């Protein structure tokens, strides 16, 4: 088994500081606290001095700890369908149980927000999720109602979303009790852009053979790209990680020993099965070298010289916001860049917006790329929707198929 990344011990410290600062702000009111959807307008919030919490990250922690299924039934009983987002139901269920994944950091409860800020570019569920807490705690839930299913992004789209970003400023200023400082916003965007570039460089080390990084490691390493976007802490961490991975590349240290095949993972992780899946792929000497998911926190369009329009554009350029044609172009480019031997689509039961196997795309890509494609049924957090035996057999059979073709 390959040695774990040494940077990970630093990652634990970085995240601990982040969560404790949030907790402290919420308890002492030393800074305003905002909850933000994972690809929401975080730069605006940081520039206004908010400490920012990402409930999707919290749900992922519940999933990875395999406690999500214990909690989500409480939200189902409240009227949230088992077919609705299991991130939402895990998080709300944990709240109803008076528990949190932050307990591992010695924190008793999630930080209560002064405002909840969403962007529906990823799904409607983030709004439904934030509306629950808005009712519960009587705090405002505001945000951006995005276009969705875009093939080409036109200037009209960007202008409309930029205007929505601008309209958030006044209420956010009122809650924070301070005015938005333009140089502050520009600096936050600069850091966000730099961090995004570093994260891209980290992921692109996996274009090498053998890959020094697997999807399963990347899902852990991506935490700063999500929760510390727009901060120097994220940039500093990724400089450290990038150096370690570049060293692995130069020494040809593989994430999966004896790498035979390279796979692309399309769709959400199955958080509660990361280890089992990682071990399975390792035993098959197959590396999942790239994923849409980990690449979804790359924001090339951010530009400190044009903050609002560039925030708008970057929120619209994301894979999840795009139409099938744009997604297929993206996947074709990624398959080539990472030299993959096959693509795996995770059909995530409760996350239709992040499941791209439902409208014939796997078949079209199989034809277009000439690569084998596999679909696996599962869920991001609800393990009742995942058949381990069937999935393992299917993946193993897929790798047998790759071996047969060589």
């Amino acid at each position: 088994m390959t040695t774990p990344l040494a940077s990970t011990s630093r990652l634990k410290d970085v995240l601990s500081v982040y969560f404790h600062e949030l907790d402290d702000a919420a308890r002492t009111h030393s800074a305003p606290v905002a909850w933000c959807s994972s690809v929401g307008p975080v730069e605006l919030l940081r520039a206004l001095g908010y400490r920012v919490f990402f409930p999707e990250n919290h749900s992922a922690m519940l999933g990875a700890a395999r406690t999500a299924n214990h909690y989500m039934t409480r939200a189902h009983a409240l009227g949230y369908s088992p077919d609705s987002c299991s991130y939402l139901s895990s998080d709300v269920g944990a709240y109803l149980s008076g528990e949190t994944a932050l307990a591992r950091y010695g924190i008793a409860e999630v930080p209560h927000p002064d405002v909840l800020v969403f962007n529906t570019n990823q799904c409607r569920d983030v709004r439904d999720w934030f509306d629950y807490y808005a009712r519960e705690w009587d705090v405002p839930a505001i945000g951006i109602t995005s276009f969705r299913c875009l093939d080409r992004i036109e200037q009209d789209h960007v202008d409309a979303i930029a205007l929505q970003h601008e309209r958030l400023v006044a209420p956010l200023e009122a809650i924070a009790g301070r005015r938005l400082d333009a140089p502050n916003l520009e600096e936050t965007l600069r850091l966000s852009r730099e961090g995004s570039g570093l994260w891209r460089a980290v992921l692109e080390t996996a274009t090498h053979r053998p890959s020094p990084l697997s999807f399963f490691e990347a899902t852990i390493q991506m935490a700063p790209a999500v929760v510390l976007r727009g901060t120097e802490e994220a940039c500093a961490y990724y400089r450290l990680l990038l150096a370690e991975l570049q060293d692995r590349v130069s020494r040809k240290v593989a994430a999966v020993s004896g790498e035979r095949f390279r796979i692309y993972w399309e769709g959400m992780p199955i958080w509660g099965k990361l280890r089992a899946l990682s071990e399975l792929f390792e035993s098959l000497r197959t590396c999942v070298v790239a994923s849409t998911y980990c690449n979804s926190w790359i924001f090339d369009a951010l530009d400190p010289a044009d903050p609002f329009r560039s925030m708008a554009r970057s929120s619209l350029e994301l894979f999840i916001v795009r139409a099938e044609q744009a997604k297929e172009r993206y996947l074709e480019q990624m398959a080539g860049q990472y030299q993959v031997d096959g693509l795996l689509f995770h059909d995530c039961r409760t996350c239709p917006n992040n499941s791209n196997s439902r409208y014939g795309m796997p078949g079209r890509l199989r034809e277009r790329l000439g690569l084998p494609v596999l679909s696996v049924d599962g869920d991001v957090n609800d393990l009742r929707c995942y058949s381990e035996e069937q999935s393992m057999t299917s993946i193993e059979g897929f790798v047998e198929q790759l071996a047969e073709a060589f």
Partner: protein
Amino acid sequence: MPPEKAPETGNGTGMPARGPTKHFVGIDSGSWTTKAVVIDETGTVLGSAVVQSAADLTGASARALEQAASRAGVAFDEATIWATGFGRASIEIASGSRTGLDCHARGVRHYVRGALAVLDIGGQDAKVIKLDEQGHRVSHKMNRKCAAGTGSFLDEIALRLGVPVSDLGDLASGYREELELGSFCTVFTATELLGAIRQGKRPADLARAAYKSIVKRVLEMAQFDRPVVATGGVIAHHPMVVALLTEALGRDIVVPPHPQEMGAFGAALAARDAASESPQHARG
């Protein structure tokens, strides 16, 4: 599902095979039944067995192995044994393993050449495996996490109709009215069935509708754009499924010999093939 399958011998004499031939055994540890097949170097089936898997996969594989070896007249401790099926990791006696996807494809390929779609309907899973002209697997699909379209569905329907599942086919053959069961879900179908019984629908018509439902579920799994070879316990024991598949596809489908044991047969072939290839195929 019948608990045990009648013995099968491949040498046409009814007598166990003899001679210096090397023997290979495949064990398919399935969710419902465990199958074992003994072959010689030519791929001829010398003996086979089907036993219930129940909760003891190791015990079931030992029983299947013993019965198949006895029927083949082969000492299994001198044979090379490979495993397949969901329980393949539990079969410690096996020196190698392959997925059911590989073994069903491999087994079918032994009998039928060319581009094919292998449709396997087992107790708790259904799969479609596509092979190209050269016999290489190009794709596979498995049923969603649901019993509809598998043997378990027929068990549930037989239970609701109060007949042994082995009699379901005979019951359905006496149908007079074509009915449809529209639900995706086995539980919902059972409820739908109760509604139909209340309306006075005949059990024979409902049994036929259940078979049609299975066929609909499996046909929606993939495009059957090439010749279809059907395997699995449902195919072996429910000829009405084969007839309905033929009718729905508008062309004949091929049912190879010993369709229920095709996975085990494929595992035995994999053992044979590995013996003549490199040792890397063996379980690591």
